[in-house]
């Protein structure tokens, strides 16, 4: 109580000195609270965005491994005797083709094995197979369907293997393991225009593109029959439960000059239908596209290691949509990074200034220290009193700083974000101009890391309880650091010497 009383008296009777210290702490507090508010709000926005757009892992071709193997198969140079012979190269190519073909045909059991992981929240998959039909006319100017084409626009699957067998078929039958697996419907790329997708994922039903329906005069309730081109007896008859359309933007971007959309010859069904076909003909080439919803972005590496340990071929690799998500939050991440740098700088500079000012103040108060020690105040009590004084000044300054910080954090953070968005936009415009286009006319989203679409255009950087708690902690830390000056001086000063100097 005595310490508090003396500290309070000292503060109120030496206003100039304490106001000076208070202003420095207040400036630190304003900067810190703004930076913390931006950091926390940005983090929570990014987390919430990442929660909203879950981390999806797919299994695709490992191009690095393929490139390495290609190098081994390179023809020998004329002046070298160490190259492979053409026979050896051919053998290696056959081996790789065979390995890739085998690896790319993931079985449902393998997918279930990979999906049975602590890092996986849920998983689904699609199977696609190339089929023909004697009763259907294909939309002939659309992209041709191949057994390894993946079948739909969700091209994260395993496509384009080295020299993979590409027996051209008229139609691609894509079977999904669940409703949520139908990512094109989920994303709005496909929209049902008539009927619906059957929720019975074991029935012989399908939905077809409206262009195919128009071309063949088909409607909901009609049936279509498809057959395996290698085994014409292996047929399947499906009832049309819905007709879908593909949206225009994806059409223009992926179909080029085609008069039909890329999904015109795609027939969507369930995995049960495709399993029935493969049971009848095990040689039927099926492309499997699994999607694993991971529990967190931090689990990507662990999941990759796990599937590799479970036997994933070296020709395949795990890829995720993390880059896409992070690209959408790039500007806000940049603002958050700037806030962190600002926070570190202000804490270092502020801490040093505070320490130096305290050193000077302690020197000015040498006489007071001498008197108090002479009349019997213990060093520990004196130190506590000085720390107490600084703490009271710090708390008041932190409160004022937090209030000011709270009132400026939102406009400051939004100004920073707007500046960052503008900078990103300029970058995109520069890329567009390299193509001789306006940014609006070209699709420059994620071109070489240039993010055109940003998830956020404002940030609600509020000074909340968490920020206040962090601010208090930082304030406490700064107080302790700057009190070291007092601690050292009080231990070092001899009251006799001080009073002699004074005399």
């Amino acid at each position, binding site marked *: 109580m005595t310490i508090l009383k003396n500290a309070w008296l000292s503060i109120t009777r030496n206003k100039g000195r304490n106001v000076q210290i208070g202003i420095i702490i207040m400036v630190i507090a304003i900067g810190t609270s703004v930076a913390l508010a931006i950091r926390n709000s940005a983090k929570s926005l990014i987390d919430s965005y990442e929660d909203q757009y879950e981390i999806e892992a797919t299994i695709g071709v490992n191009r690095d491994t393929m490139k390495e193997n290609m190098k081994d198969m390179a023809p020998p140079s004329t002046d070298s005797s160490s190259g492979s012979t053409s026979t050896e190269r051919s053998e290696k190519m056959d081996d790789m083709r065979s390995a890739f073909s085998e690896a790319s045909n993931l079985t449902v059991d393998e997918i279930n094995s990979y999906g049975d992981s602590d890092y996986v929240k849920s998983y689904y998959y699609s199977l696609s197979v190339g089929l023909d039909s004697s009763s259907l006319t294909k939309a002939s100017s659309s992209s041709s369907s191949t057994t390894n084409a993946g079948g739909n626009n969700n091209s994260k699957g395993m496509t384009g293997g080295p020299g993979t067998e590409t027996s051209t078929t008229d139609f691609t039958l894509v079977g999904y393991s669940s409703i949520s697996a139908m990512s094109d419907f989920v994303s709005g790329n496909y929209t049902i225009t008539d009927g619906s997708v059957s929720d019975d994922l074991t029935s012989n039903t399908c939905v077809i593109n409206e262009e195919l329906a128009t071309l063949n005069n088909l409607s909901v309730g009609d049936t279509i029959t498809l057959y395996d081109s290698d085994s014409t007896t292996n047929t399947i008859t499906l009832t049309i439960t819905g007709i879908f359309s593909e949206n225009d933007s994806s059409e223009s971007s992926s179909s080029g000059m085609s008069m039909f959309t890329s999904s015109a010859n795609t027939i969507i069904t369930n995995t049960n239908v495709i399993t029935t076909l493969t049971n009848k003909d095990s040689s039927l080439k099926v492309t499997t596209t699994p999607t694993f919803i991971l529990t967190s972005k931090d689990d990507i590496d662990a999941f990759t290691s796990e599937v590799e340990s479970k036997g994933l071929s070296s020709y395949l690799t795990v890829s995720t949509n993390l880059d896409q998500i992070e690209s959408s939050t790039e500007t806000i991440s940049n603002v958050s990074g700037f806030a962190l740098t600002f926070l570190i700088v202000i804490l270092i500079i502020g801490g040093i200034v505070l320490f130096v000012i305290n050193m000077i103040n302690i020197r000015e108060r040498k006489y007071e220290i001498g008197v108090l020690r002479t009349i*019997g105040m213990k060093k520990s009590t004196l130190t506590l009193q000085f720390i107490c004084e600084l703490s009271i000044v710090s708390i008041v300054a932190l409160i004022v700083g937090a209030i000011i910080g709270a009132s400026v954090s939102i406009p400051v953070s939004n100004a920073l974000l707007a500046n960052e968005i503008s900078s990103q936009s300029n970058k995109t415009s520069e890329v567009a101009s390299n193509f001789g286009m306006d940014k609006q006319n070209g699709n420059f989203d994620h071109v070489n890391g240039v993010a055109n679409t940003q998830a956020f255009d404002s940030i609600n950087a509020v000074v909340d309880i968490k920020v206040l708690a962090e601010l208090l902690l930082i304030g406490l830390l700064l107080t302790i650091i700057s009190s070291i000056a007092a601690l050292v001086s009080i231990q070092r000063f001899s009251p006799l010497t001080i009073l002699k100097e004074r005399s």
Partner: protein
Amino acid sequence: MKKNKIEDKKSENVLTLSNVSYRYYDAEPDEYVLKDISLTFDEGKTYAIRGRSGSGKTTLLSLISGLETTYEGDIIYRGTNLRKIDLDEYRSRDIGIVFQSYNLLPHLTAVENIILSMDISKINVEDKRKKALDLMESVGLKREQGDRRVLKLSGGEQQRVAIARSLSYNPNMIIADEPTGNLDKETEDEILQILTRLAHDENKCVIIVTHSKNVAEIVDVCYELKKNDK
């Protein structure tokens, strides 16, 4: 090392110096400021320690008040060696120190300076402000001067506040270093009267370090320190 509390036993002498020698840490081995000093101080008496400049008067006062601890010999307070005493506690409860330059805290009022001393000594007083004002009156100050910052008081008034402060926790000894050095003759007399009264009426041991012949004439015992020229 944990220091002992001062034993509350009555001793014949309140303070005894036995073969006390002191030299500065950077002085030659035989270059002593004080050499083999043996003195005794009793309660109820006034003492003057006189000597020329450099004779070690102030050094002796520093040793007695526990502000300087690197000495040879023994200083015994009420039967306990000062080396075994918590010196902060000793200064805050057992001795009152009055300096030539007053050594009051300028940001505090006269009363606050006195109360601060009571707070440090942890003396149990019901109304510290009242006691501080009473003490001020006892050293010839007016109560209304209590709430003035000490810098607004005259030298003599500040010295009276310093004496009142040193009396606030009722110490056994008052040690005064040139207490009248900065004061005029009239004020000097008044201050000396107060110190003498404290010894004779309140049974304190008053030790005054001084140059003044005037002081030496009115004290009960006068010790003369001679400069040690090796």
